[in-house]
């Protein structure tokens, strides 16, 4: 489809990202010998003693708190330990050494505070370990079998994640056997997207920018494979434009299921960003109440437009058209039209502009090629001429639209209202979608088939 939007990822240009991804393995911090040799297994560390400077036991480790920031590798910001029967929080700054067998603190006097979840922090055992994560390089959803800590840039950070079955089995063994790190199965934290977090989202900038490199269809597959909170967190993590693109690629029933799980507000903002005809198709299949609750949350202008689209029958031109049009007046210049095209380059419709007269009536559809060949200062009126686009009304039957398409290969069809004002366009892919729906080509059953 279109180039993915990468706005909002500061300082990261798409080209350097691709290069980074290609050399990912060599670039990885795990390639550094010092780090490989100092890996500490989180699964093995949980339950180990926490001691003071003098080596006296204070308690046992319950969980590790990490802070999410712009850094690729989240630093440890604190520990949750169990002292007698009470769970307490210890600031990460107090850690003097952290090995596979114990944690030493840099003090003998400890202030035990009650732990409260804070925004932007997550617990490695409770939120990440054994939860679903996205392996961005492998394009699949897996559960993390173990996580690894190592000192990096003056802090102890999560550097690796283990998704292997063998490491899961290792954790079943008793005693020290279960704690021994198995670094041969570790992959770089930067190549996964971890989703579980008390506050909803783990913002790992690197996996985020990696995700923006994926094709929307691949993202759609990943979304479909995730469950529950992880699914929502993943969508939350994507750039809105990219999320909308991915949603367009999802199976209709999977998408409906997803929207039923999301708050109406969130569904509304995603549907607003999708192509109107795609949004309308999904909205049409929702229950009346659900659809209405989503409309309530939308921008009123967009909602009005979508309401109209939804009301059209799917067997008529109005039901399959997209309402995104680049409309220009005949007195506009070629340069103006080109700028309009560039500004909307992410849309499906950027193959040309629709030209209308001063009263808004359809005159012509001018292709990009014609515009490029013309003088920038010329008015669009000078370019009007055959071949003229085919115009249909929203009430035109699907069969007739297909016939018109057959007669006018290569050009799209403009939908006009009774005053001859253009209201939409029908592109080849809209027709393919409509026909696929009609022939039942797309699966109609929902779910994986636990019970078909």
């Amino acid at each position, binding site marked *: 489809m279109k180039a993915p939007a990468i706005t909002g990822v500061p300082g990261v240009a798409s080209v350097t990202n691709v290069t980074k991804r290609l050399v990912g393995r060599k670039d990885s911090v795990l390639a550094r010998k010092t780090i490989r040799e100092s890996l500490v297994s989180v699964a093995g560390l949980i339950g180990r003693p926490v001691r003071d400077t003098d080596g006296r036991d204070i308690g046992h480790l319950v969980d590790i708190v990490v802070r999410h920031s712009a850094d690729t590798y989240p630093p440890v910001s604190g520990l949750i330990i169990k002292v007698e029967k009470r769970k307490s929080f210890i600031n990460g700054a107090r850690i003097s050494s952290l090995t596979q067998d114990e944690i030493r603190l840099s003090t003998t006097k400890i202030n035990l505070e009650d732990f409260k979840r804070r925004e932007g922090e997550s617990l490695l055992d409770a939120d990440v370990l*054994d939860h679903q994560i996205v392996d961005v390089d492998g394009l699949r*959803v897996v*559960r993390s079998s173990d996580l690894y800590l190592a000192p990096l840039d003056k802090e102890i950070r999560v550097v690796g994640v283990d*998704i292997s079955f063998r490491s899961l089995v290792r954790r079943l063994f008793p005693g020290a056997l279960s704690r021994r790190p198995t670094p041969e199965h570790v992959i770089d934290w930067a190549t996964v997207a971890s989703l579980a977090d008390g506050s909803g989202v783990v913002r790992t900038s690197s996996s985020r920018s990696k995700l923006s490199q994926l094709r929307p269809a691949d993202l759609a597959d990943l979304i479909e494979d995730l*469950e529950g909170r992880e699914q929502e967190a993943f969508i939350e993590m994507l750039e809105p434009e990219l999320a909308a693109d991915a949603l367009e690629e999802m199976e209709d029933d999977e998408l409906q299921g997803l929207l039923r799980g999301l708050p109406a507000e969130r569904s509304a903002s995603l549907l607003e960003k999708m192509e109107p005809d795609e949004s309308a198709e999904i909205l*049409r299949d929702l229950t009346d109440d659900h659809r209405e609750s989503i409309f309530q949350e939308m921008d009123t202008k967009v909602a009005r437009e979508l309401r109209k689209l939804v009301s059209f029958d799917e067997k008529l031109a109005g039901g399959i058209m997209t309402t995104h049009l680049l409309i220009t007046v005949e007195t506009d210049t070629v340069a103006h039209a080109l700028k309009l095209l560039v500004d909307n380059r992410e849309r499906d419709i950027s193959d040309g502009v629709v030209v209308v007269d001063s009263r808004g009536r359809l005159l012509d559809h001018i292709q990009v090629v014609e515009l490029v060949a013309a003088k920038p200062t010329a008015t669009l009126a000078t370019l009007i001429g055959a071949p003229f686009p085919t115009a249909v009304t929203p009430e035109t039957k699907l069969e007739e639209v297909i016939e018109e398409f057959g007669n006018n290969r290569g050009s799209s069809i403009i939908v006009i209202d009774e005053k001859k004002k253009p209201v939409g366009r029908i592109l080849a892919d809209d027709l393919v979608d409509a026909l696929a729906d009609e022939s039942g080509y797309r699966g109609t059953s*929902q*779910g*994986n088939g636990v019970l*078909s």
Partner: protein
Amino acid sequence: MTVKVDTTKKIRIGAFLAVMGPGIIAGLSDDDPAGITTYSQLGAQFAYRMLWTLVISTFALILFQDLGARIGVVTRQGLIGLVRQKYGARAGLLAVVSLVLANLGTMTAEFAGIATAGQLFGFSKYLTVPIAAVLVSFLVLRSSFARVEKVFFALSAVFFAYVIAGFMSHPHWGTALHGMVTPSMPLTHDAVYIATATLGTTLAPWGLAFIQSYAVDKRLTRDDLKLLRVDVWTGSLLTGVIGFFVIVTCAATLNAHGTTNITDAAQAAAALKPLAGTLAKDLFAVGLIGAALLAASILPLSTAYSITDLMGRPSGVDDKLEEAPLFYATFGILTVVAAVLILIPGAPLITILIITQILNAVLLLPLLLYMYGIAKDKRLMGEFAASRNMRGIYLAIITIVGVCVSAMLWFTFF
């Protein structure tokens, strides 16, 4: 998709049917060959006296199926994945091993039911069991499954015949009522065994995992929960009602005429004689085949779903073989191993039918405890977390299962 105006109604009914189903299917599949045999044995051996075990089992079934549905809808995760997430790797593995063993046992029982029914018609198990195994795999892995499922469903509904047979056999209703509300049992090996098997066959582990994964897989929401609960309650009550009539019929016919231990299917089928006369055997056999095929087509799917859920993401029949090797391997192994166990020459079919249900009860314990832990977790369940009173009731049921299993083990080893 069709014209919008016409579909509104269709969609509503469709949605209703889609939601009205899993609970009833799980319920009817609880009245599978193992269930019918266990209930028959209970009635033949102890007449009306131990009906109360069915009452408790049905009550437990309603509550835990309801809980499974709720967990599925609220967390939108399968049971096994959720256990691994909340309790770690060891717990996840313990849960999945329990579930797989219980399901293997029940799958074996389904094939035992097929073999038994085949024998009533005069066919060898070496013919009927392989055919059933191939048939079930073929149907499930092909998309035509949904339609065939309804046929199995209809066949297994033959067991409603017990309701009529129950009335025709003129049972002692008063004694039956007394047996339902007065917990008493002889403290013997046989009584403890059959009580445990009744719990295990009614509150089957696979049903709990199934109802939860169904809710997740079909992406049912909190809005659907009401309908789903109606369905689950209906299905569970249906299990209890059919079970009640099986026990009562067997008490009034078999037990009253001196048959106090069922050793083959023909004896069990004789309970239907007041209704069907000489056709009793055929009626019984048809019901066995339907119920066995219905359960045998869901069991391997549900098991494979759970195993893949432990490893990463749950798979289903929509995934291709190369996408989900673990899914298909589980499916295949479960079916083949269960069929081969039944084909061992001289395998005691009726004993297998009941023993597997005792195994179910044992393996229920860890699963119920995990479900209890999830139910009270406010972070996972939010406003749907179990209240103090409900927690007490769940714990009471778990205790009963625990006592039954301990007593059963005590009678086995001492």
